[in-house]
């Protein structure tokens, strides 16, 4: 493995104050725009951000995640934290960082010119690039932890993942807000490139507490590649995930799953776009919302089957449970099909837990609280089961139910 230049001496741009609306980055999103119709950003807009980057966390264990073995990249408040990281030598991989003055060398172009992408590029402080060379199978998951631990801190970070031909990789991403920080904001971008016959699974976990996290994810797939992303959203003031999955080669498999569980006025928004540009591919989407105590959930999934993309199989579903009258879900499954020989379906359900089932469990001596936990587990199990590691599964269940 090659680790390129680590340079934290000076920052590209350091501002003591950020007024998001006053920045010259295009118009700040408002609810008149379709993509932001269900997610008001008032709470974010009124914060005075800074990007003076400090380290505060001494041990990852204080963030409520299980002990991470193996390869670990930790960013804290928009900066690579080498003390918390463990970038052991992994054969066939290449890891590099862009930061400090080098950030100006960022050759990437924002392929999506929305406000938060612009913000991310303009005030980028840390970019991690991970390349997996051809014919390499990384057995152990690679862990990426992105922390906000400072009040009012804005962190603009990027993670590029290039998996070359015939290689296989599993990444666990943790977006975390320390429990004693508030009004911090991680504005992150994942850019994934999957070469032919490669495979990548990303498990993404979001637990921001009193902080915000937006993720823009761009995935480009070449032929016969496989991409799976499981997004587990546990806490945060506003969480927003924008996934753009472009399927450019034949016989690809794309799978986006998610569980989001906002409580107490938290607002979790999942937007996905899968572009089927070519024929003979399959995509699957399965998002589950469990919403209670005035929580708000948003699911807007769009599958676009372009004109020449015949024999596509695309399935999309979103099921939601509202645990009380104060909770809300906005669900919008969308399909745009311009080819004529495809198998596609989409659907959305929203409901409550069955009263009969609750009585059944209680009659066996299971308290209301535990019964609801069991039923929640039953409801999200289909998605949680996608994870093969029982310890990780247990951790997610504990955080989400």
């Amino acid at each position: 493995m090659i680790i390129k230049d680590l340079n934290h001496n000076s920052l590209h741009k350091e501002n003591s104050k950020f007024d998001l609306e006053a920045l010259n980055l295009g118009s700040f999103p408002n609810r008149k725009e379709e993509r932001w119709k269900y997610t008001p950003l008032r709470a974010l807009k009124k914060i005075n951000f800074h990007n003076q980057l400090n380290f505060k966390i001494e041990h990852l264990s204080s963030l409520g995640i299980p002990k991470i073995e193996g390869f670990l990249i930790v960013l804290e408040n928009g900066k690579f934290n080498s003390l918390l990281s463990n970038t052991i030598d992994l054969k066939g991989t290449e890891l590099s960082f862009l930061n400090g003055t080098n950030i100006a060398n960022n050759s990437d172009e924002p392929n999506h010119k929305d406000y938060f992408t612009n913000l991310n590029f303009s005030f980028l402080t840390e970019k991690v690039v991970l390349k997996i060379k051809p014919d390499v199978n990384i057995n152990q998951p690679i862990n990426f932890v992105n922390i906000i631990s400072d009040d009012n801190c804005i962190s603009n970070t990027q993670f590029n993942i290039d998996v070359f031909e015939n290689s296989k990789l599993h990444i666990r991403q943790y977006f975390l807000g320390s429990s004693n920080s508030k009004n911090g904001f991680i504005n992150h971008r994942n850019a994934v490139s999957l070469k032919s016959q490669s495979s990548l699974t990303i498990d993404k976990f979001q637990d921001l507490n009193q902080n915000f996290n937006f993720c823009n994810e761009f995935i480009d797939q070449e032929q016969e590649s496989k991409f799976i992303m499981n997004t587990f959203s546990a806490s945060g003031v506003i969480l927003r995930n924008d996934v753009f999955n472009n399927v450019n080669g034949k016989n690809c498999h794309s799978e986006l799953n998610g569980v989001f569980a906002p409580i107490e006025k938290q607002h979790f928004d999942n937007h996905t776009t899968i572009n089927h540009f070519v024929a003979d591919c399959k995509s699957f989407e399965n998002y589950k919302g469990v919403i209670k105590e005035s929580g708000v959930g948003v699911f807007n999934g769009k599958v676009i089957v372009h004109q020449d993309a015949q024999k596509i199989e695309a399935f999309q579903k979103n099921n939601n449970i509202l645990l009380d009258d104060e909770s809300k879900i906005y669900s919008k499954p969308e399909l745009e099909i311009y080819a004529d020989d495809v198998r596609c379906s989409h659907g959305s359900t929203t409901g409550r837990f069955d009263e009969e089932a609750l009585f059944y469990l209680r009659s066996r001596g299971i308290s209301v609280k535990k019964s609801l936990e069991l039923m929640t587990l039953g409801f999200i199990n289909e998605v949680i089961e996608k994870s093969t590691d029982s310890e990780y599964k247990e951790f997610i269940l504990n955080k989400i139910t």
Partner: protein
Amino acid sequence: MSELLIEIKDLECRIDNQKILKGLNLKINKGEVHAIMGPNGSGKSTLSSVLAGNDNYEVTSGSINFLGEEISEMSPEERSWKGMFLAFQYPVEIPGVSNINFLRTALNERNKYYGVDSIPAKDFLKMVAEKSELVGLNNKLKNRSVNEGFSGGEKKRNEIFQMAMLDPKLSILDETDSGLDIDALKIVANGVNKLKSSENATVVITHYQRLLDYIVPDFVHVLHEGKIIKSGDKSLALELEKKGYDWLKTDENI
């Protein structure tokens, strides 16, 4: 003298402003098997739901004394901890929750209530193996989601399996015979009989005498319009099988 397990006095209850039970009296001692029969809509299933604590039903007067304690305001889970068990007429499917996890949770919740440690995994699994054999429950069903995709017969066996696991003081079997073929009926009845002891009691709610050939009752009661209008021994069930209920209704001037 046998020990009193439950005493129901002048019980009245309603659902959606409709009165269903209209002054029901019933006493059950430990070691006894009671059968409750009656025409459709007489209140049999309501009685079982009310005893188990289904809060769709409102108890408007009367009392239910279970092991010396008034339980009509008690939550279903607390009743269960104290030894009440209802085998449902229509067992509910709970997708995504395995039968095993469900039962382990149930036992642990009860242990927690009594301040007892959780049951060790090994003992639990041993118990599962033992008790499921009692009703010939297929091994695979134990790991499947609760009642999901079970046949009618499997669901009923699963109810008796749960009963065996929880070892209740009072078991109410609400039309456990419905939807069972004769072989399954024998297996289920056999399971119930094996669980019988001098410390517990069973209430069998049924439409048909057939089940009572296998689970022999000490007492048979006829429920009509929310009241018990006749009680007798097992011969009453045979008589009902022959004559139906109409003769009773005239007899009792109802």
